[in-house]
């Protein structure tokens, strides 16, 4: 049953010439056909046809079957490959220790910075969002021209609510009013006490831990205290029904215990007292006054109005017309400020203390991103610079069948390993630095690692960093042609070098801009602190009147005058850190139109000019020898200009403030009585018949004794109240706390950005020096000096830094110029600040490079040249 076989030689030809991948089937087919013809047409015919057929399936006639991939492609995610990737990554980390440490250090410091900044940003943005109806609550602010104030009048909340259906409810809150609390033996000055309307707890979402939410603020004799206060005074949070004596004259019953105010609330308080209590004595509240702006008014709008800007605009129009309807002639621009905007978007005067600034939030957010980018650049630079070390691996992987995707996957994976390692270290750094950072920012920042959102964003940061920093090396390395790298002829391409240089330049641009920023912030702070305020702020001690002192002003003055330490004193109505009173109700000689400018006023006594060392430009100061001074006014230069007068004709003109008519007796040189963020405002001085703050000019070096003398006077005249005092210059410095904070934070992060850049530079210079070992050897043999070699190695980097300076200067100049715009009084941004920053950056960079370049230059050429 042997099938007839075609001749062997023909088969050999077939096997030899026919394409391999179709040989099996074709040979079989031909055999079958041969057998068929053999059976049907005989041997000769069969052989003939067989030969014809063979020829037609030989090249060039045969068509080649396209090779389909017959082998199984390696699955990139197979456990074996993954294991291999991890192993190689780990070996690379361990083998190149210094490189890995540089990388991980840079990345983790960068991440830690970003995490810290983002924590801060997140905290700033979270303000007042905990209120359940946060998006419906708005604060009513009243501005008169340039004088933008956060306050409004007592009658507004009830007045608008009753007439406008869009307003669901309104709440009035007083400013902080310092009070003396007394429980048993304990006597403490409490500063954070506010009067609030009875629906306060209902309106906002401050939780009440004990007590009845509905009635807690109804009873005029009640007080609500926070948990912290309850613990402080009673040692327990179960304080309901207990008594607190306030200002040594009235007993209040604790009607409820509040949770401590959340740190991210712009309203901060320790105690709440019902508005009704204040209403017993305040004519403002009894008459629902419309023209004395002393309360904060919050309004809850209905959904529709709250959601639409145009509806709110219409509401403001209605508010304005109602305001006019109450017989008010003053032109007020009302605004509805969203509750969630109060903290960050407030540039109002007379606002609650300690609000933030959206500008700083934006700036720091950008800085966080840039620091992260700088850290990523480090990684990219070092990875690509060292690519030659990995080139053979890439070549070999490609030879055994890795495709580009797998290599990209591998290198991205490696950078992700780096970034996650760094993340873990970064979290450690954050925990270490958090206390310092809290001190700098004066915020209660916490990091809860188990918080899903935070964890997600941390992982997000790590993934982003890993992908960003791994992307270029991955694309670059995976593109190597295996033939070239395995032959050992890898040339670092010019494009790659250019890209790396661009990255270095970017790093230094960021560093220089931050340096300039720091310098300018500090320069501005210094400028503000050293600016001549128009009075001598040093050695001014103040004693705010409290308790019985109000009633014993004559005795107080007498006592002060008798002691030579305190005899140089004056009694003024408010500290010149923030004069809060102001009115447009001013009429003067020659006035053409009703006044629309807010004139702040300050009550001073006869000693004011002497004690404050201000200058009288025309006329005279207040004087006891003139009996009519109770109806006399002094004005400052600015007021004089607004009134259209000059130094020669102002004195003797008549003017009236409110209902009181009087004469201008003098013009005082402008002095600052508010934060320097505000431009000079007009000021009216009048004789003090009311009291306020005792200011004492002490002699330098006698501060301690003066304080003691004052304490003694307080003890004699005001035994029930503790002695309070302060130094004006310290208070003035405190006005610029947020700027100071910003300066400190800026400083910290600028330093870190430079440090991270230098880490990268160090690695890069080490690599460069290593690459040029032979060149340096040859140069030295031919007689190059050490200095020459160091110069050679440094000049490449020097060029880059010079380019960075050129790019950074305009950016820094523009950025800082726009920051300075926020100040009424700005320091000049001089070219030498930028030059200094540039020189500093250059010096730091050269110093970093010098480690490696000097080492390379000192190397014995015998060693470096020996191997060839």
């Amino acid at each position: 049953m042997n099938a007839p076989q075609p001749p062997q030689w023909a088969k050999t030809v077939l096997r030899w010439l026919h394409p391999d991948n179709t040989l099996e089937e074709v040979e079989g087919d031909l055999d079958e056909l041969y057998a068929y013809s053999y059976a049907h047409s005989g041997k000769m015919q069969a052989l003939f046809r067989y030969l014809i057929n063979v020829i037609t399936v030989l090249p060039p006639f045969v068509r080649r079957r396209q090779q389909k991939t017959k082998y199984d492609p390696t699955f990139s995610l197979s456990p074996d490959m993954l294991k291999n990737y991890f192993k190689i990554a780990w070996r690379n980390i361990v083998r190149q220790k210094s490189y890995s440490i540089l990388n991980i250090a840079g990345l983790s410091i960068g991440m830690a910075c970003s995490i810290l900044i983002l924590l801060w940003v997140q905290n700033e943005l979270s303000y007042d969002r905990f209120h359940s109806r946060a998006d419906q609550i708005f604060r009513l602010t009243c501005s008169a021209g340039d004088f933008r104030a956060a306050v409004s009048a007592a009658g507004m909340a009830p007045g608008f609510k009753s007439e406008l259906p869009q307003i669901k409810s309104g709440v009035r809150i007083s400013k902080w009013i310092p009070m003396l609390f007394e429980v048993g033996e304990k006597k403490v000055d409490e500063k954070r006490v506010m009067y609030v309307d009875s629906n306060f707890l209902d309106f906002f979402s401050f939780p009440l831990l004990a007590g009845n939410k509905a009635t807690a603020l109804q009873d005029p004799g009640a007080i609500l205290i926070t948990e912290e206060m309850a613990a402080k005074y009673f040692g327990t949070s179960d304080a309901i029904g207990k008594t607190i004596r306030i200002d040594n004259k009235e007993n209040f019953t604790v009607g409820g215990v509040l949770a401590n105010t959340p740190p991210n609330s712009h309203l901060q308080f320790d105690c709440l007292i019902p508005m009704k209590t204040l209403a017993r004595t305040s004519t403002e509240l009894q008459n629902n006054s419309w023209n004395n702006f002393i309360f904060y008014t919050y309004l809850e709008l209905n959904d529709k109005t709250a959601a639409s800007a145009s509806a709110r605009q219409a509401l403001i129009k209605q508010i304005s017309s109602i305001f006019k309807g109450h017989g008010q002639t003053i032109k007020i621009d009302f605004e509805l400020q969203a509750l969630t905007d109060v903290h960050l978007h407030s540039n109002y005067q007379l606002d609650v203390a300690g609000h933030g600034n959206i500008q700083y939030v934006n700036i720091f957010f950008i800085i966080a991103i840039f620091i992260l980018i700088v850290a990523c650049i480090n990684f990219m630079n070092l990875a690509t610079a060292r690519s030659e070390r990995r080139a053979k691996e890439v070549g070999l992987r490609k030879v055994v069948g890795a495709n580009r995707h797998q290599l990209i996957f591998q290198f991205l994976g490696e950078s992700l390993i780096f970034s996650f390692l760094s993340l873990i270290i970064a979290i450690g750094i954050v925990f270490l630095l958090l206390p310092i950072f809290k001190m700098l920012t004066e915020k209660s920042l916490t990091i809860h690692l188990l918080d899903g959102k935070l964890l997600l964003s941390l992982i997000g940061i790590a993934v982003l960093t890993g992908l960003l920093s791994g992307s270029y090396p991955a694309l670059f390395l995976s593109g190597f042609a295996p033939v070239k790298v395995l032959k050992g002829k890898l040339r670092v391409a010019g494009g790659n070098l250019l890209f790396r240089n661009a990255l270095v330049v970017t790093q230094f641009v960021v560093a220089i801009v931050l340096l300039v920023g720091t310098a300018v912030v500090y320069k501005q702070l210094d400028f503000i602190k050293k600016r001549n305020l128009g009075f001598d702020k040093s050695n001014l001690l103040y004693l705010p009147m409290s308790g019985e002192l109000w009633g014993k002003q004559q005795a107080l003055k007498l006592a002060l005058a008798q002691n030579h330490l305190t005899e140089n004193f004056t009694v003024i109505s408010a500290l010149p850190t923030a004069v809060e009173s102001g009115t447009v109700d001013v009429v003067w000689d020659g006035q053409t139109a009703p006044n629309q400018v807010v004139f702040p006023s300050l009550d001073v006594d006869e000693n004011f000019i002497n004690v404050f060392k201000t200058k009288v430009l025309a006329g005279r100061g207040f004087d006891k020898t003139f009996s009519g001074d109770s109806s006399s006014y002094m004005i400052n230069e600015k007021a004089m200009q607004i009134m259209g007068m000059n130094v020669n004709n102002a004195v003797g003109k008549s003017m009236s403030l409110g209902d009181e008519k009087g004469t201008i007796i003098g013009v005082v040189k402008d002095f600052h009585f508010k934060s320097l963020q505000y431009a000079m405002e007009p000021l009216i001085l009048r004789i003090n018949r009311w009291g306020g703050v005792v200011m004492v000019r002490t002699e330098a070096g006698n501060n301690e004794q003066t304080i003691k003398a004052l304490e003694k006077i307080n003890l004699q005249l005001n035994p029930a109240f503790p002695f309070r005092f302060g130094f004006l210059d310290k208070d003035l410095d405190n006005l610029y706390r947020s700027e100071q904070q910003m300066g400190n934070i800026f400083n910290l992060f600028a330093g870190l950005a430079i440090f991270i850049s230098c880490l990268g530079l160090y690695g890069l210079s080490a690599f460069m020096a290593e690459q040029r070992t032979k060149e340096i050897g040859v140069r030295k043999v031919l007689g190059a000096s050490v200095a020459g070699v160091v110069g050679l190695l440094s000049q490449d980097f020097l060029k880059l830094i010079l380019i960075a300076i050129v790019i950074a200067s305009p950016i820094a100049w523009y950025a800082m110029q726009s920051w300075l715009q926020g100040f009424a009084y700005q320091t000049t941004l001089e070219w030498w600040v930028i030059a200094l920053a540039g020189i500093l950056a250059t010096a730091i960079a050269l110093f970093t490079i010098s480690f490696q370049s000097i080492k390379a230059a000192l190397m014995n050429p015998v060693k470096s040249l020996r191997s060839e």
Partner: protein
Amino acid sequence: MRRTYLGEFEELVLLMIAILDENAYGVTVSQEIEQQTGRLVAFGSVHNTLIRLEEKGFVTSGLGGATAERGGRRKRLFKVTALGKTALADIQELRNKLWKLMPDDTLKLSGI
């Protein structure tokens, strides 16, 4: 969609594969053509056409069905794909349409 061009011989081979249904490979296709049309074809042209048809996506192939008379070698069996079926149907349809457009006498004249 651009119709893939199908040559006369390609169409013939494709039709044979369809006729042979599951049992189409080089030998059977050659023999079927010989039997149905009386045409003697070189194996090479059948082989090339089969590869080309597969490249164009009208047929798919798989190895299998080794027999003793082939020396234990596997056959490459071909199957018409959906695309191949549509292509055949399209051709048929086009032919029919064109035939219908022909005037009756033309048909008679040409039918000599």
